[in-house]
């Protein structure tokens, strides 16, 4: 019998088809570890409708909400939904390296994990010097 998953879960909340595409990309690279991520789109949803759906998706337990634009409807919904819950953290500016790091480090304490993800996400944005 397998032990229950006690790791931090992740929700990717983004515009249009972006969240589903990002989780699909994680699955192609990291396989079933992508099961820890749930994609959610803002498509055709009112602000209240999006917050309600996000709240249902988050449930109990520790969770990181990854959003694209902090100033967008996804970022606003995430911040509003997570504001009073210590076990829910929001990370804005999601990218693929950040999500990949997440699925391999879900056992870390929530705050430590979120700080790590921000650092890893930023560090992955580079302009490599390629010899011409």
């Amino acid at each position, binding site marked *: 019998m397998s032990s229950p998953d006690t790791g931090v879960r992740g929700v990717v909340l983004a515009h249009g088809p972006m969240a589903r595409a990002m989780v699909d990309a994680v699955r192609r690279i990291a396989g079933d570890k992508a099961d820890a991520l749930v994609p959610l789109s803002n498509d*055709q949803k*009112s*602000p209240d*409708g999006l917050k309600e759906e996000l709240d249902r998706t988050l449930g109990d337990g520790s969770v990181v909400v990854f959003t694209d*634009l902090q100033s967008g409807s996804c970022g*606003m919904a995430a911040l509003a939904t997570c504001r009073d819950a210590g076990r829910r953290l929001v990370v804005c500016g999601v990218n693929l390296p950040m999500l990949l790091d997440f699925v391999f480090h879900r056992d870390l304490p929530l705050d430590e994990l979120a700080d790590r993800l921000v650092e890893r996400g930023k560090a992955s944005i580079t302009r490599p010097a390629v010899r011409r």
Partner: protein
Amino acid sequence: MGIVLFRIDERLIHGQVVIGWGHELRPHRYVLVDDELAASDWEQDLYRLAVVDTEVEFVEVEAARARLQEWRDDSRRSIVLTRDVATMRRLGEGGLLAGEKVNLGGIHHGPGRTEVLRYLHLTAEDRADLTALAEDGAHVSARDLPDAPGVALASLLDD
């Protein structure tokens, strides 16, 4: 400069407004006219976090009516937002928005709403309020983004 956009958008500040309209109009300030929001400190914090490099004001409808001319005369550019049609109608009551262009942005599907455009769903009350707003002299049209074609109110209200 003055007021560069009046917009009805249930999400108020979000990607289309900050990125789409914001890059086109370069506002110095967003004015969010909403009685509930003007009384909610934590919601105001969220909106201020969203646009760190632009001023955001939260104003009740009656106070906004009294300050419209101040914003029009200001050398800084303002975008004035309401989250529903009824609030914009109250803002413009008595002809205060006469001659102004009022932009209808996003209102999503919900109970009692019917789809008018992909991004616009109106109730019977919304339709009556839009008609009243136009009768008070405002030029109302729908357009989600600056480079999208505008749709005049008359064709929106055609059944």
